[in-house]
């Protein structure tokens, strides 16, 4: 039993497995590229209904178009396991070797040697964060606001009111067909938590965080000063996503590892070359 576990552990940490997985991931993503073409409506609900319900509905009913995604999940899981085992093996070796040396310089060298492994652990945490997002996120879909209207955030005393939609339009001349189109959609919101009020600016790339929720701009109207006159509105995704903290932590970990790696590169390897 013990021997079987050891064989399994070694197999999961194999560099051959890493290379094989990378090749398979590449092939799978090529398959995904062609499968995604004009089939976005299949995958859009994944953003709000969660992974398991999506797998049981859209995913399993359209396997020809979604098979690559299931395979991607399996491959990424294996890659995460492979990375963890491989990195842990190396970290154990480095820590064991630490007993051979003492002193500040030695400890610093050890910390720098751990840099790639910190990045690897960071990657695993990021992947776990995304998995947590797709498994556990609570999403309120299709919340539409017009100026003056508000929405209440469930389970809180928080209320969000749209004060004004203040888009920026393209005024240049170089892209004639883009003239008067909205290039930055901005919505001014009033956030009321029951005791205090504050204003916040929401845009496509800048969600607003409030009362444990994040508000994301999904769509808006009007999109142009010309053409059909549409009434002003913004459509929101309201999310409570436990994965965000996890993948932000992963990014911090990855950045720390990267910084240590670059430091080692500049301070030691370049110096050795000279």
């Amino acid at each position, binding site marked *: 039993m013990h021997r079987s576990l050891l064989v399994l552990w070694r197999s999961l940490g194999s560099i051959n497995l890493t290379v094989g997985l990378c090749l398979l991931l590449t092939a799978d993503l090529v398959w995904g590229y062609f499968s995604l073409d004009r089939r976005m*409506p299949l995958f859009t609900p994944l953003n709000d209904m969660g992974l398991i319900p999506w797998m049981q509905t859209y995913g399993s009913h359209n396997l020809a178009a979604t098979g690559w995604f299931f395979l991607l999940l399996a491959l990424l899981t294996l890659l995460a396991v492979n990375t963890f085992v491989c990195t842990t093996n190396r970290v154990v070796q480095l820590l064991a070797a630490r007993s051979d040396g003492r002193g500040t310089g030695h400890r610093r060298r050890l910390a720098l040697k751990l840099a790639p492994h910190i990045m690897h652990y960071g990657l695993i945490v990021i992947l776990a964060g995304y998995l947590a997002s797709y498994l556990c996120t609570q999403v309120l879909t299709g919340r539409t606001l017009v100026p003056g209207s508000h929405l209440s955030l469930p389970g809180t005393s928080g209320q969000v009111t749209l004060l004004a939609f203040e888009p920026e339009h393209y005024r240049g001349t170089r892209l004639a067909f883009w003239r008067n189109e909205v290039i930055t959609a901005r919505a001014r919101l009033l956030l009321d938590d029951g005791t205090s009020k504050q204003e916040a600016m929401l845009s496509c790339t800048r969600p607003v965080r409030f009362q444990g929720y994040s508000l994301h701009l999904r769509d808006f109207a009007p999109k142009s000063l010309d053409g059909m006159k549409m009434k002003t509105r913004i459509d929101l995704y309201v999310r409570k996503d436990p994965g965000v903290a996890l993948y932000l932590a992963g990014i911090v970990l990855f950045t720390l590892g990267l910084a240590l790696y670059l430091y080692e590169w500049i301070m030691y390897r370049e110096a050795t070359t000279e």
Partner: protein
Amino acid sequence: MNRSTSHPVLGTLFLLLALAVLAACDRGDRAAGTAGDSEPAFLQVGEFAINRISPDRTEVRDGAGRTLVLIPREAPMPADCAPSQVIRVPVQRVAAYGYFDIAVLRALGVLEQTLVGVTVPAKRWHIPEIKRGMEAGRIAFLGDAASIDYERLKQSEPELVLTWDPSVIPLLDDLHIPAVVTTTPTAMCLNARMRFVQFLAPFFQKEREADAYFARIDAALRDIRARTAGLAHQPRVMWGDIYEKRVMVEPGNAWVGELVGLAQSDYQFKDVFGTSCIEITVERFLYSGQDADIFFTYRTREMGATSKEALAKLNPLIKDIAPLKRGKVYAPLPHYTQGADRLDEILTEISAILHPEAYPDYQLHYFVELPDTEPVPKERS
């Protein structure tokens, strides 16, 4: 690394992962069994979807990505969703914005019994049930879609509003009237156009009528395919128009684009993807018009599409495109946009226009071919 031992282990891992995926899919299939009827537990219609959770609960996803819950009329209000998300079925009073939605109600056989409000005045209707209903006061004109009279809407007491305009939803929420957004950011493909009736069917518990309608359209498509499959000539088709400042066309992913391809023809905008009636550049429109054979304009006779000459006068830019010079131009008749309940006839007519050789003696009902010049008015005797 011992390869001979690692490969069986990895193979086992892959097998386990595959089984896990299959298990997830299997749970979805079992859900189909719990729905308790012959209808599939999950049905996707373009960007719309129906998910039958139990006999007393069906969740639908509308064109704006909102989830709505359908429950029987006598069932208690579910605690896990907002009241504005809950629709009691079968719906008995409905207000509708779009021609297509209303045509689908007609296809389901519920138009006369359920429709109580529209956003188009009586004089512009060609559907006899609506003309009669408006005359009798059963169907109210709620005002133009851009400026709905909410007082009148409230008086009509609809249990459901079918709309293309999401900006009315906050106001409808205040009035406690559930709404379904029936348009989507991307154009409906042919399959979605045919199946949309199956999306609306659960609201009225008319699944059987929806299936019959779909079967009729499907039969028409099969006939089109059979008649046109072996034809050598593949006409090049464009569908859209140039307006004062903008050029709008049907993209390749729209149902007309797909139909043209299915009917052994070549759609000039098949590479264009996006919303129905999408804007493109003038240059692209003119480039595609250089070698097109057939041009379907959005304009009706009432909008000035009385002849090729009239179209060229309306927009001198298009006077040199091939369909106006040596090809054919077709304009929709006014009742075309209200005739989606006869989608089989419309599809057949478009196919007959593309391949008249496959439809001898076909008489047009939904489109009219534009003459080269303005018809000379008959002299009064």
